[in-house]
Protein backbone atom coordinates (compact mmCIF):
# COMPACT_ATOMS: atom_id res chain seq x y z
CA UNK A 1 0.00 0.00 0.00
CA UNK A 2 1.22 3.45 -0.75
CA UNK A 3 0.11 6.31 1.38
CA UNK A 4 -0.02 9.83 0.06
CA UNK A 5 2.96 10.68 2.19
CA UNK A 6 5.07 7.94 0.55
CA UNK A 7 5.10 9.89 -2.64
CA UNK A 8 5.73 13.25 -1.04
CA UNK A 9 4.50 16.64 -2.17
CA UNK A 10 4.21 17.08 -5.88
CA UNK A 11 3.15 19.84 -8.14
CA UNK A 12 0.21 19.06 -10.34
CA UNK A 13 -1.41 21.17 -12.96
CA UNK A 14 -4.80 22.58 -12.25
CA UNK A 15 -7.12 21.53 -15.07
CA UNK A 16 -8.98 24.81 -14.92
CA UNK A 17 -6.16 27.33 -14.82
CA UNK A 18 -3.18 25.32 -15.92
CA UNK A 19 -1.24 26.87 -13.05
CA UNK A 20 0.70 24.62 -10.68
CA UNK A 21 -0.84 23.84 -7.31
CA UNK A 22 0.64 22.17 -4.29
CA UNK A 23 -0.71 18.93 -2.88
CA UNK A 24 -0.11 15.28 -2.12
CA UNK A 25 -0.93 12.58 -4.58
CA UNK A 26 -0.94 8.87 -3.95
CA UNK A 27 -2.62 5.56 -4.48
CA UNK A 28 -4.91 4.30 -1.80
CA UNK A 29 -5.31 0.63 -2.61
CA UNK A 30 -5.42 -0.96 0.82
CA UNK A 31 -5.43 2.41 2.55
CA UNK A 32 -8.43 2.89 4.79
CA UNK A 33 -10.02 5.97 3.29
CA UNK A 34 -12.15 6.65 6.40
CA UNK A 35 -8.94 6.69 8.45
CA UNK A 36 -7.45 9.27 6.11
CA UNK A 37 -10.55 11.46 6.34
CA UNK A 38 -10.64 11.06 10.10
CA UNK A 39 -6.99 12.05 10.39
CA UNK A 40 -7.59 15.16 8.29
CA UNK A 41 -10.71 16.07 10.26
CA UNK A 42 -8.91 15.70 13.56
CA UNK A 43 -6.11 17.89 12.31
CA UNK A 44 -8.47 20.64 11.21
CA UNK A 45 -7.62 20.27 7.53
CA UNK A 46 -9.07 22.75 5.07
CA UNK A 47 -9.08 21.88 1.41
CA UNK A 48 -10.07 19.36 -1.20
CA UNK A 49 -9.61 15.60 -1.30
CA UNK A 50 -9.89 14.45 -4.88
CA UNK A 51 -10.50 10.77 -5.50
CA UNK A 52 -10.22 8.89 -8.75
CA UNK A 53 -10.95 5.32 -9.59
CA UNK A 54 -10.73 4.37 -13.25
CA UNK A 55 -12.97 6.75 -15.12
CA UNK A 56 -14.84 7.84 -11.99
CA UNK A 57 -13.91 10.90 -9.98
CA UNK A 58 -15.18 12.47 -6.82
CA UNK A 59 -14.19 15.06 -4.29
CA UNK A 60 -14.58 15.80 -0.63
CA UNK A 61 -14.07 19.26 0.87
CA UNK A 62 -13.14 19.96 4.45
CA UNK A 63 -13.21 23.27 6.25
CA UNK A 64 -11.31 23.48 9.53
CA UNK A 65 -11.77 19.76 9.92
CA UNK A 66 -15.50 19.64 9.16
CA UNK A 67 -16.66 17.83 6.03
CA UNK A 68 -18.71 20.42 4.19
CA UNK A 69 -19.14 19.08 0.68
CA UNK A 70 -18.82 15.88 -1.32
CA UNK A 71 -19.52 15.15 -4.92
CA UNK A 72 -19.44 12.01 -7.00
CA UNK A 73 -20.47 12.53 -10.58
CA UNK A 74 -24.07 13.76 -10.41
CA UNK A 75 -24.50 13.04 -6.72
CA UNK A 76 -23.61 15.49 -3.98
CA UNK A 77 -23.82 15.73 -0.20
CA UNK A 78 -24.00 12.90 2.31
CA UNK A 79 -24.92 10.30 -0.28
CA UNK A 80 -21.88 11.11 -2.39
CA UNK A 81 -19.67 11.07 0.69
CA UNK A 82 -20.91 7.63 1.70
CA UNK A 83 -20.36 6.26 -1.78
CA UNK A 84 -16.85 7.67 -1.95
CA UNK A 85 -15.95 6.22 1.41
CA UNK A 86 -16.89 2.80 0.10
CA UNK A 87 -14.13 2.93 -2.51
CA UNK A 88 -11.33 0.52 -1.79
CA UNK A 89 -8.78 1.62 -4.36
CA UNK A 90 -7.88 4.53 -6.59
CA UNK A 91 -5.91 7.72 -6.48
CA UNK A 92 -6.08 10.46 -3.93
CA UNK A 93 -5.03 14.05 -4.38
CA UNK A 94 -5.02 16.49 -1.52
CA UNK A 95 -5.20 20.18 -2.26
CA UNK A 96 -4.89 22.30 0.88
CA UNK A 97 -6.81 25.54 1.34
CA UNK A 98 -9.05 24.89 -1.67
CA UNK A 99 -12.52 26.25 -0.86
CA UNK A 100 -15.67 24.28 -1.74
CA UNK A 101 -17.79 25.57 -4.63
CA UNK A 102 -20.86 24.88 -2.51
CA UNK A 103 -21.58 23.42 0.94
CA UNK A 104 -23.88 20.40 0.86
CA UNK A 105 -23.12 18.77 4.21
CA UNK A 106 -23.97 20.17 7.62
CA UNK A 107 -23.29 17.26 9.94
CA UNK A 108 -20.43 16.88 12.43
CA UNK A 109 -17.62 14.90 10.85
CA UNK A 110 -17.59 12.16 13.47
CA UNK A 111 -21.32 11.50 13.04
CA UNK A 112 -20.88 11.50 9.28
CA UNK A 113 -18.07 8.95 9.46
CA UNK A 114 -19.98 6.71 11.88
CA UNK A 115 -22.98 6.75 9.61
CA UNK A 116 -20.99 6.12 6.47
CA UNK A 117 -19.09 3.26 8.07
CA UNK A 118 -22.30 1.72 9.36
CA UNK A 119 -23.78 1.83 5.88
CA UNK A 120 -20.70 0.23 4.38
CA UNK A 121 -20.85 -2.50 7.04
CA UNK A 122 -24.54 -2.99 6.28
CA UNK A 123 -23.82 -3.44 2.61
CA UNK A 124 -20.96 -5.85 3.27
CA UNK A 125 -22.96 -7.84 5.82
CA UNK A 126 -26.11 -8.22 3.80
CA UNK A 127 -25.74 -7.24 0.17
CA UNK A 128 -28.53 -9.59 -0.87
CA UNK A 129 -30.84 -8.17 1.76
CA UNK A 130 -30.25 -4.67 0.47
CA UNK A 131 -31.10 -5.76 -3.06
CA UNK A 132 -34.26 -7.49 -1.91
CA UNK A 133 -35.58 -4.31 -0.30
CA UNK A 134 -39.04 -3.82 -1.77
CA UNK A 135 -39.21 -0.71 -3.90
CA UNK A 136 -41.02 2.19 -2.36
CA UNK A 137 -40.59 0.94 1.19
CA UNK A 138 -40.34 3.88 3.52
CA UNK A 139 -36.74 4.28 4.62
CA UNK A 140 -35.44 7.05 6.84
CA UNK A 141 -33.54 9.83 5.13
CA UNK A 142 -29.76 9.75 5.44
CA UNK A 143 -29.80 12.86 7.61
CA UNK A 144 -32.42 11.27 9.86
CA UNK A 145 -30.39 8.09 10.17
CA UNK A 146 -27.35 10.13 10.90
CA UNK A 147 -29.06 11.89 13.73
CA UNK A 148 -30.29 8.58 15.11
CA UNK A 149 -26.85 7.01 14.99
CA UNK A 150 -25.36 9.96 16.77
CA UNK A 151 -28.17 9.90 19.35
CA UNK A 152 -27.69 6.16 19.79
CA UNK A 153 -24.01 6.64 20.49
CA UNK A 154 -24.66 9.42 23.00
CA UNK A 155 -27.19 7.29 24.87
CA UNK A 156 -24.83 4.33 25.01
CA UNK A 157 -22.29 6.58 26.70
CA UNK A 158 -24.72 7.53 29.49
CA UNK A 159 -24.02 6.01 32.88
CA UNK A 160 -26.46 3.22 33.67
CA UNK A 161 -27.27 2.46 30.02
CA UNK A 162 -25.93 -0.90 28.92
CA UNK A 163 -27.74 -1.27 25.62
CA UNK A 164 -29.79 0.86 23.28
CA UNK A 165 -32.15 0.19 20.41
CA UNK A 166 -33.84 2.82 18.28
CA UNK A 167 -36.55 1.85 15.87
CA UNK A 168 -39.52 2.90 13.86
CA UNK A 169 -42.62 0.95 12.91
CA UNK A 170 -41.34 -2.14 14.65
CA UNK A 171 -38.02 -2.12 12.81
CA UNK A 172 -34.69 -1.52 14.49
CA UNK A 173 -32.73 1.30 12.85
CA UNK A 174 -29.88 1.52 15.37
CA UNK A 175 -27.71 -0.42 15.70
CA UNK A 176 -27.48 -1.34 12.04
CA UNK A 177 -27.03 -5.05 12.73
CA UNK A 178 -28.67 -5.96 16.04
CA UNK A 179 -28.26 -9.50 17.27
CA UNK A 180 -31.37 -11.63 16.56
CA UNK A 181 -32.36 -11.75 20.23
CA UNK A 182 -32.45 -7.97 20.51
CA UNK A 183 -34.40 -7.79 17.28
CA UNK A 184 -36.93 -10.22 18.69
CA UNK A 185 -37.17 -8.29 21.96
CA UNK A 186 -37.66 -5.03 20.13
CA UNK A 187 -40.66 -6.49 18.33
CA UNK A 188 -42.17 -7.50 21.65
CA UNK A 189 -41.48 -4.05 23.08
CA UNK A 190 -43.00 -2.41 20.03
CA UNK A 191 -46.17 -4.50 20.26
CA UNK A 192 -46.59 -3.73 23.94
CA UNK A 193 -46.01 -0.04 23.36
CA UNK A 194 -48.48 0.09 20.49
CA UNK A 195 -51.08 -1.74 22.57
CA UNK A 196 -50.54 0.55 25.54
CA UNK A 197 -51.23 3.57 23.37
CA UNK A 198 -54.46 2.04 22.09
CA UNK A 199 -55.67 1.08 25.54
CA UNK A 200 -55.78 4.09 27.79
CA UNK A 201 -57.08 3.55 31.30
CA UNK A 202 -59.69 5.82 32.84
CA UNK A 203 -58.35 9.04 34.36
CA UNK A 204 -54.82 8.17 33.28
CA UNK A 205 -54.30 11.54 31.64
CA UNK A 206 -53.32 10.26 28.21
CA UNK A 207 -50.87 7.83 26.64
CA UNK A 208 -48.01 6.43 28.70
CA UNK A 209 -45.03 8.76 29.05
CA UNK A 210 -42.72 5.80 29.29
CA UNK A 211 -42.73 2.05 29.72
CA UNK A 212 -40.51 -0.28 31.63
CA UNK A 213 -40.24 -3.94 30.81
CA UNK A 214 -38.41 -6.92 32.11
CA UNK A 215 -37.48 -9.33 29.36
CA UNK A 216 -35.64 -12.44 30.48
CA UNK A 217 -34.53 -10.71 33.67
CA UNK A 218 -33.19 -7.65 31.83
CA UNK A 219 -34.76 -4.28 32.48
CA UNK A 220 -35.63 -1.92 29.62
CA UNK A 221 -37.00 1.59 29.48
CA UNK A 222 -38.98 2.64 26.42
CA UNK A 223 -39.70 6.15 25.32
CA UNK A 224 -41.60 7.24 22.25
CA UNK A 225 -40.04 10.19 20.44
CA UNK A 226 -42.27 11.15 17.54
CA UNK A 227 -42.30 8.22 15.13
CA UNK A 228 -39.33 6.63 16.84
CA UNK A 229 -39.07 4.40 19.86
CA UNK A 230 -35.97 4.42 22.01
CA UNK A 231 -35.36 1.39 24.20
CA UNK A 232 -32.49 1.46 26.65
CA UNK A 233 -31.39 -1.43 28.79
CA UNK A 234 -30.65 -0.14 32.25
CA UNK A 235 -28.29 -1.33 34.92
CA UNK A 236 -29.88 -2.07 38.26
CA UNK A 237 -30.40 0.97 40.44
CA UNK A 238 -30.47 3.45 37.56
CA UNK A 239 -32.72 6.45 38.15
CA UNK A 240 -35.60 5.88 35.73
CA UNK A 241 -37.02 9.38 35.85
CA UNK A 242 -33.54 10.85 35.44
CA UNK A 243 -32.76 8.75 32.36
CA UNK A 244 -36.17 9.52 30.89
CA UNK A 245 -35.61 13.26 31.30
CA UNK A 246 -32.14 12.92 29.82
CA UNK A 247 -33.40 11.04 26.75
CA UNK A 248 -36.10 13.61 26.06
CA UNK A 249 -33.72 16.52 26.66
CA UNK A 250 -31.04 15.10 24.35
CA UNK A 251 -33.61 14.38 21.65
CA UNK A 252 -35.09 17.86 21.80
CA UNK A 253 -31.62 19.35 21.80
CA UNK A 254 -31.02 17.51 18.54
Amino acid at each position, binding site marked *: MKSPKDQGPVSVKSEASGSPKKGFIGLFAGLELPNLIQMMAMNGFTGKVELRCGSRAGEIYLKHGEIVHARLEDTAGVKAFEQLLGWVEGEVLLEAERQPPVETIDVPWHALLIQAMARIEDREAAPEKAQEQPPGKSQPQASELLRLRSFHRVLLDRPGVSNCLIGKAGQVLCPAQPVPKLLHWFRIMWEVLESSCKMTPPDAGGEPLMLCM*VLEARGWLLVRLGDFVVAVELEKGTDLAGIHREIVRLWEKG
Partner: protein
Amino acid sequence: MAAQESPLAELAATDGVRMVCVFAPDGRLLSSVPKAMENTPWIEFLQTWSGHPCLSWPELEEMALFYPNSLVIWRRIGENRNLSDGPSNLGEALYRNIFLVAEPATSLSLLRVSLDVKEHGWRALGIHKVFPSSAGKGSEGGILSKLFRRPTH
Protein backbone atom coordinates in the same frame (compact mmCIF):
# COMPACT_ATOMS: atom_id res chain seq x y z
CA MET B 1 -63.80 -12.21 52.22
CA ALA B 2 -62.69 -9.12 54.14
CA ALA B 3 -59.99 -7.01 52.49
CA GLN B 4 -57.66 -7.61 55.44
CA GLU B 5 -57.76 -11.35 54.84
CA SER B 6 -56.87 -11.17 51.19
CA PRO B 7 -53.35 -12.21 50.21
CA LEU B 8 -53.24 -8.87 48.38
CA ALA B 9 -54.07 -6.77 51.42
CA GLU B 10 -50.47 -6.03 52.39
CA LEU B 11 -49.55 -4.95 48.87
CA ALA B 12 -52.64 -2.81 48.63
CA ALA B 13 -51.62 -1.09 51.86
CA THR B 14 -48.25 -0.02 50.39
CA ASP B 15 -47.83 3.74 50.13
CA GLY B 16 -49.21 5.05 46.86
CA VAL B 17 -50.98 1.85 45.82
CA ARG B 18 -54.59 2.36 44.79
CA MET B 19 -55.48 -1.15 43.72
CA VAL B 20 -54.11 -4.67 43.35
CA CYS B 21 -55.77 -7.46 41.45
CA VAL B 22 -54.99 -10.93 40.18
CA PHE B 23 -56.35 -12.52 37.04
CA ALA B 24 -56.29 -16.10 35.83
CA PRO B 25 -54.59 -16.70 32.46
CA ASP B 26 -58.02 -16.88 30.85
CA GLY B 27 -58.81 -13.36 32.08
CA ARG B 28 -61.05 -14.17 35.05
CA LEU B 29 -60.67 -11.91 38.03
CA LEU B 30 -59.52 -14.01 40.97
CA SER B 31 -58.86 -11.45 43.65
CA SER B 32 -58.78 -7.70 44.09
CA VAL B 33 -58.26 -5.11 46.81
CA PRO B 34 -60.03 -2.83 47.49
CA LYS B 35 -63.26 -4.38 46.41
CA ALA B 36 -64.77 -0.98 45.72
CA MET B 37 -62.49 -0.66 42.68
CA GLU B 38 -64.29 -3.57 41.04
CA ASN B 39 -67.09 -1.18 40.22
CA THR B 40 -64.81 1.17 38.31
CA PRO B 41 -63.68 1.00 34.67
CA TRP B 42 -60.21 0.05 35.89
CA ILE B 43 -61.17 -3.60 36.20
CA GLU B 44 -62.27 -3.74 32.58
CA PHE B 45 -59.05 -2.05 31.50
CA LEU B 46 -56.86 -4.46 33.47
CA GLN B 47 -58.91 -7.43 32.35
CA THR B 48 -58.34 -6.43 28.73
CA TRP B 49 -54.61 -6.27 29.37
CA SER B 50 -54.71 -9.58 31.19
CA GLY B 51 -56.04 -11.36 28.13
CA HIS B 52 -53.90 -9.40 25.69
CA PRO B 53 -51.68 -11.58 23.45
CA CYS B 54 -48.68 -9.35 24.27
CA LEU B 55 -48.58 -10.70 27.78
CA SER B 56 -48.33 -14.23 26.45
CA TRP B 57 -44.79 -13.70 25.25
CA PRO B 58 -42.81 -15.98 27.55
CA GLU B 59 -39.85 -13.58 27.44
CA LEU B 60 -41.90 -10.74 28.88
CA GLU B 61 -41.92 -11.02 32.65
CA GLU B 62 -42.95 -7.61 33.87
CA MET B 63 -44.23 -4.30 32.56
CA ALA B 64 -44.72 -0.86 34.07
CA LEU B 65 -46.77 1.80 32.30
CA PHE B 66 -46.14 5.36 33.43
CA TYR B 67 -49.25 7.34 32.59
CA PRO B 68 -49.46 11.03 33.51
CA ASN B 69 -51.90 10.29 36.34
CA SER B 70 -51.22 6.65 37.16
CA LEU B 71 -48.62 3.95 37.32
CA VAL B 72 -49.70 0.47 36.26
CA ILE B 73 -47.53 -2.56 36.92
CA TRP B 74 -48.11 -6.02 35.54
CA ARG B 75 -46.17 -9.12 36.40
CA ARG B 76 -46.58 -12.77 35.60
CA ILE B 77 -46.32 -14.63 38.86
CA GLY B 78 -45.78 -18.35 39.16
CA GLU B 79 -44.77 -20.85 36.55
CA ASN B 80 -45.15 -19.84 32.95
CA ARG B 81 -46.52 -23.15 31.79
CA ASN B 82 -49.87 -24.79 31.52
CA LEU B 83 -48.87 -28.27 32.51
CA SER B 84 -49.74 -29.26 36.02
CA ASP B 85 -47.73 -31.36 38.42
CA GLY B 86 -50.48 -33.77 39.26
CA PRO B 87 -53.67 -35.33 37.96
CA SER B 88 -55.82 -33.27 40.33
CA ASN B 89 -54.65 -30.06 38.69
CA LEU B 90 -54.72 -31.34 35.15
CA GLY B 91 -54.91 -28.46 32.74
CA GLU B 92 -54.73 -25.71 35.34
CA ALA B 93 -52.26 -22.99 34.47
CA LEU B 94 -49.84 -22.37 37.29
CA TYR B 95 -49.30 -18.69 36.67
CA ARG B 96 -51.37 -15.62 37.38
CA ASN B 97 -51.38 -12.04 36.13
CA ILE B 98 -51.04 -9.53 38.91
CA PHE B 99 -51.67 -5.81 38.42
CA LEU B 100 -50.91 -2.91 40.72
CA VAL B 101 -52.34 0.53 40.09
CA ALA B 102 -50.51 3.27 41.94
CA GLU B 103 -50.05 7.01 42.15
CA PRO B 104 -47.81 8.26 39.33
CA ALA B 105 -45.07 9.41 41.69
CA THR B 106 -44.81 6.08 43.50
CA SER B 107 -41.36 4.53 43.43
CA LEU B 108 -41.28 1.64 40.97
CA SER B 109 -38.32 0.13 42.78
CA LEU B 110 -40.19 0.12 46.06
CA LEU B 111 -43.23 -1.53 44.50
CA ARG B 112 -41.10 -4.12 42.77
CA VAL B 113 -39.39 -5.04 46.03
CA SER B 114 -42.75 -5.33 47.81
CA LEU B 115 -43.99 -7.52 44.98
CA ASP B 116 -40.82 -9.65 45.08
CA VAL B 117 -41.29 -10.31 48.77
CA LYS B 118 -44.93 -11.28 48.41
CA GLU B 119 -44.32 -13.39 45.32
CA HIS B 120 -41.58 -15.28 47.13
CA GLY B 121 -44.05 -16.22 49.86
CA TRP B 122 -46.80 -17.14 47.41
CA ARG B 123 -44.46 -19.30 45.37
CA ALA B 124 -43.56 -21.26 48.47
CA LEU B 125 -47.24 -21.98 49.03
CA GLY B 126 -48.02 -22.47 45.35
CA ILE B 127 -49.38 -19.57 43.31
CA HIS B 128 -52.31 -21.64 42.07
CA LYS B 129 -53.21 -22.45 45.66
CA VAL B 130 -52.97 -18.86 46.93
CA PHE B 131 -55.04 -17.70 43.96
CA PRO B 132 -57.12 -20.74 42.99
CA SER B 133 -58.79 -20.47 39.64
CA SER B 134 -62.08 -21.50 41.25
CA ALA B 135 -62.11 -18.22 43.16
CA GLY B 136 -63.57 -16.34 40.25
CA LYS B 137 -66.62 -16.65 38.11
CA GLY B 138 -66.85 -18.86 35.07
CA SER B 139 -65.76 -22.38 34.29
CA GLU B 140 -62.86 -24.26 35.81
CA GLY B 141 -59.75 -24.82 33.78
CA GLY B 142 -60.03 -28.53 33.13
CA ILE B 143 -58.88 -30.90 30.44
CA LEU B 144 -60.35 -28.64 27.76
CA SER B 145 -58.25 -25.69 28.83
CA LYS B 146 -55.23 -27.94 28.50
CA LEU B 147 -56.23 -29.02 25.03
CA PHE B 148 -57.21 -25.54 23.92
CA ARG B 149 -54.68 -23.48 25.80
CA ARG B 150 -53.60 -20.12 24.47
CA PRO B 151 -50.86 -20.31 21.91
CA THR B 152 -47.41 -19.31 23.03
CA HIS B 153 -45.14 -17.33 20.78
